[in-house]
């Protein structure tokens, strides 16, 4: 078995050295965010300031990256989270990942900071650190034009240079948005990392892999979600259903329905401003939107951007949302945290607690504020801190919609309580994906699991959290996992008796789901495409013995490792929380159950996870998972 090749680049001294990965570590953590979490644990001293050159960034690919498997071009960035001070992982579909691997490396680890603005060039395995004085200050689009168009590029925009806490790293038009990856690169004085090479991934059994791969791609192309809904309407196609189930955040998460939602749905986008669909390299799903901004075709917005710059600030103008999305990308900012923070600033304004000149329902001043945030100018500069730190200064903690400091994605958790539990327990903060994305089976119309009951949510959430961690570590885009939900269910619709029966069934089998984790990996000792398409693919590509049970256990191991990192950094179970608006104020005043019953769900969650009452993984659990680190 070929082991992944990692290098450690010390930016302070300019030295480059190999960082060997043992076979044991490789088999336990695969790659991507899982392996990176383990490495970060070893490499990062406790208590380092996140927004400083001392932060360590691991940028890595995964075993499936570059194999030709569907939707496998993604790469991961792991570092100490600027927003939460816990662990951060940010995933991106840009070409950089494929090119990093083609240049000969599976991952690079950046330690220390460069003395002056620099960029890192990795060509055919040769690493050099060069001056980026001439690139500093450029936006993410312009700086990429300075390099060979065939190279893979990972750059930061002005926001990263100026230390905006949620600054993103940009590769092509794709963005590693969450947690402040751009800010940490900026703190290290790194403007760009470029890579090129022609190394090919050696497949363990190419013949069988090709046959399986064709089946896997066909499976995705014929599934109603990945073969029709996503390519046709993009992720914004979920908006209509989210609104119908009162889960579309509106006016800084104070409501769950937006009366003008029909103007900003994925369907409206497809019927009006969409020029065509597109996708990351290697992806047959092609959910990316292409739209026109200033006479140029650019990447269109995702569901989260539409929700947070649409309903959540009461804007019903798709053209405006496209412009904001484009500006956020080229300035290098996470549109989720940016949108969430702007909504928070608007509510502060409405309540007379602060004056940033931003008002719900008004587009006035938003674009200027976004540019000011990125360039660190004027009053809007403070908005670059994110809603948690703003609330500490101006008050309004009860409606600062973040978890651990990271703003929530566009799913209103009071009508999707499983998602609420996910947000609270997610290791990187208010993230729907790290949180298990239970909203997919609760509110966006794929399956209609009861949105309000706390029953079974811990079990379902844990299942999806672990599955998502494992899929990420293998290198697959998480949209491929939508195909795991049987296609006929989405065709029947959430109201159909069979879909409702399946939804009830998922809640009923919760004791079994919960007990599963104690029996992994011995339970599910097989690979079956319709259960988990990844495992067979992984087995044929790497030659690693792999079963569905083993795979899910890798996900669980990753989640626990990330949790241990957070605990070591001083986060506690008190940080597994949401703001009062979501846990104490019912969304529908006539229904007391329209809150996130976190206090009810958390103890069960900890128990099923095998953690103690304080949310600390028990030694027994760690031993079972083979995690040999202590805190």
């Amino acid at each position: 078995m070929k082991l992944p090749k990692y290098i450690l680049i010390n930016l302070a001294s300019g030295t480059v050295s190999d960082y060997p990965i043992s076979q044991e570590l490789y088999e336990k953590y695969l790659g991507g965010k899982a392996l990176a979490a383990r490495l970060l644990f070893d490499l990062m001293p406790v208590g380092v300031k996140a927004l400083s050159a001392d932060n360590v960034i691991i940028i890595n690919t995964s075993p499936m990256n570059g194999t030709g498997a569907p939707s496998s071009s993604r790469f991961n960035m792991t570092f100490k989270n600027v927003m939460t001070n816990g662990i951060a992982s940010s995933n991106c579909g840009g070409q950089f990942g494929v090119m990093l691997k083609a240049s000969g490396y599976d991952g690079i680890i950046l330690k220390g900071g460069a003395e002056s603005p620099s960029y890192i060039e990795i060509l055919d395995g040769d690493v050099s650190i060069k001056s980026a004085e001439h690139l500093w200050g450029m936006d993410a689009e312009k700086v990429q034009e300075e390099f060979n168009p065939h190279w893979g590029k990972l750059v930061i925009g002005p926001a990263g240079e100026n230390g905006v806490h949620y600054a993103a790293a940009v590769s092509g038009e794709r963005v590693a948005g969450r947690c402040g990856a751009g800010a940490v690169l900026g703190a290290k004085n790194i403007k760009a990392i470029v890579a090129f090479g022609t190394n090919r991934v050696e497949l363990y059994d190419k013949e069988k892999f090709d046959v399986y791969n064709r089946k896997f791609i066909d499976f995705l192309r014929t599934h109603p979600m990945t073969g029709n809904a996503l390519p046709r309407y993009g992720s914004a196609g979920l908006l209509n259903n989210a609104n119908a189930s009162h889960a579309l955040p509106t006016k800084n998460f104070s409501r769950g329905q937006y009366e003008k939602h029909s103007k900003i749905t994925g369907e409206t986008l497809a019927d009006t401003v969409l020029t065509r669909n597109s996708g990351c390299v290697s992806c047959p799903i092609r959910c990316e939107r292409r739209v026109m901004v200033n006479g140029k075709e650019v990447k269109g917005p995702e569901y989260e951007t539409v929700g947070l710059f649409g309903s959540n600030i009461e804007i019903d103008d798709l053209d405006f949302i496209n412009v904001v999305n484009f500006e956020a990308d080229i300035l290098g900012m996470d549109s989720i945290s940016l949108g969430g923070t702007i909504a928070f600033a608007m509510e502060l304004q409405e309540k007379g607690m602060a004056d940033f000149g931003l008002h719900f329902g008004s587009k006035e001043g938003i674009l200027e504020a976004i540019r000011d945030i990125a360039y660190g100018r004027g009053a809007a500069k403070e908005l670059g801190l994110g809603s948690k730190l703003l609330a500490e200064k101006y008050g309004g903690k009860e409606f600062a919609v973040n978890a651990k400091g990271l703003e929530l994605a566009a799913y209103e958790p009071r009508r999707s309580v499983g998602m609420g539990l996910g947000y609270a327990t997610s290791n990187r903060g208010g993230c729907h994906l790290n949180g298990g994305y239970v909203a997919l089976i609760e509110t966006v119309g794929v399956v209609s699991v009861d949105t309000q009951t706390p029953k079974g949510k811990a079990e379902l959430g844990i299942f999806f959290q672990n599955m998502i961690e494992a899929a990420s570590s293998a290198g697959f885009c998480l949209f491929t996992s939508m195909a795991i939900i049987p296609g006929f269910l989405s065709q029947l619709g959430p109201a159909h008796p069979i879909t409702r029966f399946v939804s009830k069934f998922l809640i009923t089998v919760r004791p079994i789901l919960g007990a599963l984790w104690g029996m992994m990996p011995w339970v599910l000792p097989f690979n079956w495409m319709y259960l988990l398409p990844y495992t067979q693919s992984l087995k044929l590509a790497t030659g690693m013995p792999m079963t569905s049970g083993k795979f899910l256990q890798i996900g669980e191991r990753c989640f626990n490792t990330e949790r241990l990192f957070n605990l070591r950094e001083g986060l506690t179970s008190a940080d597994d929380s949401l703001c009062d608006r979501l846990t104490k104020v019912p969304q529908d005043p006539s229904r007391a159950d329209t809150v996130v019953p976190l206090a009810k769900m958390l103890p069960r969650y900890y128990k099923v996870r095998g953690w103690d009452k304080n949310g600390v993984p028990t030694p027994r659990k760690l031993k079972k998972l083979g995690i040999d680190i202590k805190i």
Partner: protein
Amino acid sequence: MAYFITEDCIGCTLCARSCPVEAIAGKLKERHVINPKRCVECGVCGNVCNNAAILNSKGEKAVKIPKAEWKKPIVDKELCSACAICVHACGKDCLSISLPQFRGDIKVFAYLANEKQCVSCGLCASYCPLHAITMKGGEQK
């Protein structure tokens, strides 16, 4: 093993300009050099060299092939999933994903948009995970 340029090279730059992965460096009228780390052994340099100055990976002299006889990628539209691996693998920007025929058309595919630029390296076909690309045409007469 990578391709190699012998001292017969007159420095015409044709191979450097044709190489799909930019693996060849050299100045006009000076002997060129192939970067062995980057060479993908596609044979394009040998196909274009007028002076038979290229040795292939087996150490044999490569023979020039007239442009009219070069094979071109033909994409099986039905099989293609428009994953764009070929588009990105192409160092000459020859391939594109087709435009939708009508609003809402998602049945798009890769095609040879820029035939003149194609150097017949076959990288697209070798990268295609579905084997939907075959190099065809230009059979030797």
